[in-house]
């Protein structure tokens, strides 16, 4: 049977129509499968340590959160300060240390769901002229562009009221000091206090007894700084803005300069030849822990621990996490003087000793 030309055209046309319809149906099905089912998003707010704000404002993080049904908001507060702040309507507390969590527990907060989210070593930020002067005088050392400060020597110099000129920096105003956030309110200042207390205890973790014994010295060291911010974010910003005269050396988190390099390239370009990151010998690790206060808080904790967020937090904001910082080195940030392995680390004092440190510094503030 001979099939006429017109029939062929007709069949072909039919085939096309069928294909188009099938294709459309298939495509719609595919499309439906691939469009995330709209998730009901709930707004969640809580208290957040300032150094993590850049992450919580990151659109990529907010998008990941949206996907998981969370519209994340925050209030900035120091790690210790947040434990006594009004928790009405708050679903999480996100301090920067275990100490803060323990402090919260002592304030009758249910911390049973708390978990570690990120880690970041405590570092000291300073300026090139200060760093080089202190290397020359032996308080600091520099090897292959990596700066370390000998905390025993530094604490000794502060205890003896050495001036900046005494420790080698001729242009400095007044006494040698290392500024920090308020140790009674904010974690980075608090961990610095712990470090000082450890050093004063001969390098061993401070105890309630050693803290009592060294209380006058610890108070004197913090007295040198006077004004202390309650947020590591403000403190770091002022360090950048006001320059060497205002805060010659300042305690911070390693991630702060990494975050700056990634997210504020213009600002980084301006300061990269001047800012020096110094690893204290020894230093302490800051463990950023989230305390969920309700179901939404638990949801946020799970999100933060997901690979997606952990990866984002490391690559874009410099928070170390077990899974990523190990395989994807710190050189990726292009920040000179950073190290993959922080070798000299001291243990934080026991909770009792930490509470004792907070108590003596609180007393000093009156």
């Amino acid at each position, binding site marked *: 049977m001979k099939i006429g030309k017109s029939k062929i055209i007709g069949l072909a046309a039919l085939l096309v129509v069928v294909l188009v319809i099938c294709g459309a149906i298939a495509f719609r099905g595919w499309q439906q499968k691939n469009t995330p089912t709209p998730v009901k998003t709930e707004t969640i707010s809580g208290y957040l340590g300032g150094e993590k704000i850049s992450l919580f404002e990151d659109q990529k993080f907010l998008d990941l959160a949206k996907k998981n049904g969370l519209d994340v908001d925050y209030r900035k507060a120091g790690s210790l300060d947040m434990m006594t702040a009004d928790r009405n309507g708050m679903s999480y507390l996100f301090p920067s240390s275990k100490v803060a969590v323990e402090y919260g527990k002592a304030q009758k907060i249910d911390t049973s769901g708390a978990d570690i989210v990120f880690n970041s070593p405590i570092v000291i930020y300073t300026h090139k002229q200060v760093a080089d002067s202190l290397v020359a005088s032996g308080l600091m050392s520099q090897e292959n562009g990596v700066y370390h400060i000998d905390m025993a020597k530094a604490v000794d110099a502060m205890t003896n009221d050495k001036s900046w000129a005494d420790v080698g920096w001729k242009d400095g105003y007044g006494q040698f000091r290392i500024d920090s956030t308020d140790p009674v309110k904010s974690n980075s200042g608090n961990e610095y206090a712990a470090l000082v207390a450890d050093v004063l205890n001969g390098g061993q973790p401070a105890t309630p007894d050693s803290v009592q014994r060294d209380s006058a010295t610890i108070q004197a060291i913090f007295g040198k700084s006077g004004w202390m911010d309650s947020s590591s974010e403000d403190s770091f910003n002022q360090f950048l803005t006001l*320059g060497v005269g205002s805060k010659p050396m300042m305690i911070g988190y390693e991630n702060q300069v990494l975050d700056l390099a990634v997210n504020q390239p213009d600002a980084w370009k301006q300061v990269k030849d001047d800012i020096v990151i110094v690893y204290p010998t020894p230093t302490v690790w800051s463990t950023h822990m989230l305390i969920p206060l309700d179901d939404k808080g638990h949801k946020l904790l799970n999100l933060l621990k997901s690979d997606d967020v952990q990866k984002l937090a490391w690559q874009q904001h410099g928070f170390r996490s077990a899974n990523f910082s190990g395989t994807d080195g710190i050189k990726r940030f292009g920040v000179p003087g950073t190290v993959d392995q922080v070798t000299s680390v001291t243990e934080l004092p026991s909770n009792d000793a930490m509470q004792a440190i907070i108590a003596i510094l609180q007393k000093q503030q009156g």
Partner: protein
Amino acid sequence: MLGPRTASITQALRKRTVAVVATVLATAMMLAGCAGGNDNANGGSGNVSDGSYSTTPTSGDVKTQEFKPKSGSPTATLKIASGSENREVAGAIQKAVDDSKVAVTLDYMGSLDIMNTLENGGGDYDAVWPASSMWISMGDTKHIVKNAQSTSTTPIVFGIAKKKAQQLGWANDDGTTKSVATTDIIDAVQSGQLKFSMTSATQSNSGASAYLAFLTAIAKTGQALTQDDLNKSDVQNSVKTLLSGVDRSSGSSDWLKDMVVANPDRFDAMVNYESLVIQANKQLTKDGKDPLVAIYPADGIAVSDSPLGYVDRGQKTDKAFGEFSKALQSKSAKLLFEESGRRTGLGGVLTYADNAKVKDSFRSEWGINATSSALKTIPMPSADVITSSLSVYQTILRKPSWTVWVVDYSGSMEGQGKDGVVRGLNAALDPDQAKQAHIEPGNDDVNVLIPFSSKAFDPTKTTGTDTSAILNTGSDTRPNGGTDIYAGLEAALKNNMPDDFSKYTTAIVLMTDGQSQTGNKDAFTADYKANGHEVPIFPIMFGEADPSQLNELASLSNAKVFDGRTEDLATVFRQVKGYN
């Protein structure tokens, strides 16, 4: 309305204001590549030339300033509580508004007011923009401030008339300066060679910062000021000596600059932001006057970091804030900041040091040193030491004030007017009430109340913290009769001034609700000029008061008019007290 007979100072000032604003605007437009003459960047001052506005003799009077995008309608409007010094960066603000399409309304107030606003939950503000971060940190007890970021920096310096600075041996002919320590300044004050004006430490950031730097430098411990340092009698005595050199105070840094510029022959020096010394010099140079030379005390100064921060009251304007804030950090906005005399580089330096217009602001012949090495920044004391320092300033260390309150008790004051006056006097003089605004009377302060109608009544005088006699007279006096402000002022000037003017900062506060008869006007004006002490007269306008009469007095005495018609009188009395 400004009358045709308004004194020439006012007119000169208006012209200057317009000229400065016009320059800034022109720059902004050039950079933005825009044409067109929408002048909303200059708030009230822009209309001064046609006389349709205002009650204000100087640009430093504008309390609220609105900025709208030059083209298109704004996507949002932000209400910002701002330090008065931001009047000077209107060009950068306008640029950021144009670029972000976010309109902003700036309410100008002192730093302590911004701190109090935050303590009380932020009022209806979307953002705060004080001169220094410390006011946000101290005020943000409710954790409502987010994303605070420095917009620019400027150190607090002494601006000293060049001839004076040369006499003192502090400046060379080319304007370069020598190293001057706080002790040198104290010596110059003690020997009567130096007087200076400075804002009140309890009302304004520049005054507070300078005062804390004085204390720290004088304590000489090389570390942050402590309560023990503050309690030392030699520290207190030295600061008291230094502050005895204050010849005029003010509640606003920007207005202080206007005041000095308006009468450079009278004022040798001011403590103010470097940026305002630059602004003052642009005007002084234009007027053919001796410029000020910037002196950076070698043993400790403070730096303002001018942070802009979002106030989160759940109002969801954070996106608009982010856009405006980002635009304010743009290169072109930063350039405008620097042209206005602010530094925008990290580390307290200039970003565009090589730009011609920036060079034109940061001139070495004005003693300006734009490197960071001139900034021997003090470590700020802790919050509790700041608070107690300010309290000691107000009650003990500042130069005593001599304030004559000339208050209208004409018949029309019956009711609302008198109620307002009584509340106002209490707000300014009752120690407990005044303390809330940090204006409480000190032991040596003198206050005199002269009620008047068509003649002056008997004065009531108090010395020290017990002001009850004045408060009683204020509430017991019955309104009756006509209005002759000149009779009241004449009584103040003739019989109620200090014997030794050098011991006090002296001011007359005139409150009136009606147009005055003018029979005594010429006699008073002649007497005022003959008196020679140039006591500032701060008129408070109320009811049917005649703005032209009051503006004239403010101009005559290089002071400013306060408007009690649009604001609560208690608030206005409090503000006026902050100027003395």
